[in-house]
C-alpha cells in the first residue's frame, strides 16, 4: 500500500545525521527524519554540585527533552509538561544502558535535547541525536543507541510513522536499540494489536534502528576521521 510520501512500508523518512553542530558543547548532534528535527548537546562529565546529589560510584545522567515553542503547528508553551517529563525519563533510561557511567563517579553528564521541528517521532529523533552527541563528547559507550517507531497500517507492518499515519496505525511502537549488544533500551506502545503482530512490529523497528545506526556511525566518521587524518 502506498504511503502519503511515497515510501515503502519498511522505508525510513529521509535521514540526516550530523555530529558536532554546537561549538560550545562537549559533544553534539543534529538529526532530522523528514520534517522532524532534533538537536542534542552533551556537557560533561563535570563536577556535581551540590555535593549531596553526587552519586558515589557513577556519574549522574540528566536528560532534558524540550520542544521549542515554534516547533509545532500550534505554538507550544515553553516549560515542562507531563508529557515532556515522561519523555525525559524514558530517554534517560534508553541511553543509560549504553554508557559506562561508572567510569566517572561523583560527576554529572547532561544531555540536552531540543526539538526544533516536530512531525511525529520526536522522542526517537531526540534519542538518535543524544546518542551521537554522547559519542561525539568522547563518553565511553558500549555502543550507539538508535531509535525509531513502527506500527501496522491495514495489513502492513510500517516503519517510521509520520503525519496522518499516527492515526491510521493499529499501534505506535517506538523502540530504542543497541545493535552492538542486540538489546532494546526503550519500548512503549499505544494501540490495540495482537501480541504476534506486536512482535513483528518490534522486529521491523529493529531493522529500522540498524539503518539509523549506520547513519549515526557515518556522521561520527565524517566528523572525526578527517580530523584524525590531519
Amino acid at each position, binding site marked *: 500500500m502506498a504511503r502519503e510520501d511515497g515510501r515503502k512500508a519498511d522505508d525510513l523518512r529521509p535521514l540526516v545525521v550530523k555530529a558536532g553542530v554546537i561549538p560550545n558543547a562537549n559533544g553534539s548532534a543534529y538529526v532530522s527524519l523528514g520534517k522532524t528535527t532534533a538537536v542534542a548537546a552533551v556537557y560533561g562529565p563535570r563536577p556535581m554540585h551540590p555535593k549531596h546529589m553526587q552519586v558515589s560510584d557513577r556519574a549522574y545522567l540528566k536528560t532534558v527533552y524540550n520542544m521549542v515553542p515554534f516547533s509545532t503547528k500550534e505554538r507550544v508553551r515553553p516549560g515542562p509538561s507531563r508529557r515532556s517529563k515522561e519523555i525525559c525519563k*524514558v530517554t534517560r533510561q534508553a541511553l543509560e544502558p549504553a554508557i559506562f557511567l561508572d567510569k566517572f563517579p561523583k560527576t554529572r553528564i547532561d544531555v540536552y535535547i531540543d526539538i526544533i521541528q516536530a512531525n511525529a517521532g520526536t522522542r526517537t529523533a531526540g534519542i538518535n541525536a543524544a546518542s551521537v552527541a554522547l559519542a561525539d563528547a568522547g563518553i565511553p559507550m558500549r555502543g550507539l543507541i538508535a531509535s525509531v517507531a513502527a506500527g501496522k497500517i491495514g495489513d502492513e507492518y510500517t516503519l517510521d510513522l509520520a503525519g496522518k499515519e499516527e492515526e491510521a496505525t493499529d499501534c505506535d511502537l517506538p523502540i530504542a536499540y543497541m545493535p552492538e*549488544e542486540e*538489546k532494546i533500551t526503550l519500548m512503549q*506502545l499505544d494501540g490495540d*494489536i495482537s501480541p504476534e503482530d506486536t512482535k513483528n512490529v518490534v522486529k521491523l523497528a529493529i531493522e529500522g534502528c540498524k539503518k539509523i545506526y549506520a547513519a549515526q556511525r557515518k556522521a561520527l566518521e565524517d566528523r572525526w576521521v578527517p580530523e584524525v587524518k590531519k
Partner: protein
Amino acid sequence: MMIIQKNHIRGLASAGKRMDGRKEDDFREIKIETGVIENAEGSAKVSVGKTEIIAGVKMNIGEPFPDRPDEGILMTGAEFSPLASFEFETGPPSEDAIELARVVDRGIRESHMIDNKKLCIAEGEKVWMVFVDIHILNHDGNLLDCAALAAAAALGHAKFPKYDGEKIEFGEKTDKGLPITCKPIAVTLTKVGEKLLTDATFEEEGASDVKLTVTTKDDGNICAIQKSGSGPLAFSEIEKAFEISVRKGKELRKLLE
C-alpha cells in the same frame, strides 16, 4: 538497599525462588473493595500484598477539546503520598508518579475501555469529564499493576451524579454507570537476575534494573506497553513478557467481575 541483599534476591531468583516463597509468576494476595469513598462517583481500594492503593473517579461537565467535539474527556492523575513510603516526598508529582498516571491512562484510553462518544452531551459544547485519581497508601512494589486495577475497578463501579441539564447535584448518584466496553489489565514483569518476576515486591524492585509493563484487553490484544528502568531487554525477554502478561491478565480480569 545493600549490595549483599540485592545479590541475595538475585541469587534466589536465578534458582527460581523468591523471598516470600512465591513462584516466578505468582501474584501476592489481591483484595478489591469498591465504593469505599462516598463522595466519589466511583472508587476502589485495591491491595496487592502490602501495596495498597485507592482510586477515585470524579465527574463534571466541561467543554470538549476543539479537535474532538463529540467526545468526553478522561484525565488520570496520580499522587505518591509521602504517607506511603519513606521514598516519597511532598511537592509536585514526581517523574515516577507522572509516568504511572500516564501508563494507566494509556491503558484506559487505547483500549477504549470507556466509549467516549457516549460522554458527549451537546456536541462542541458540553461533555462529561471523567477524572481518575490514584492515591498510593502503602508502597510495597508493583504500584503500576495495582493502580491500573484500582482505576479499572473504580471506573467499572462509577455512577453518574444527578444532573438536570444545568447543574450537577454532587453527592446524589444515579444508577447509571459509565459506558464500559472492556477491562484493560496491566501486568508488569520485573527482571531480577535472569528471571522475569511477576508482581515484584519493593525489595525485588530494588534488586532489578528493568521492568516491562504490558496492558492487555479482554480479547488478548495489547493496548499499552512501557519499558521502565535503566537496564536493557532482549527480544526473547519481550516475547516471554507478552506470554505471561496475556495469561496473568486473564486471571486478574476475573477479579473485576
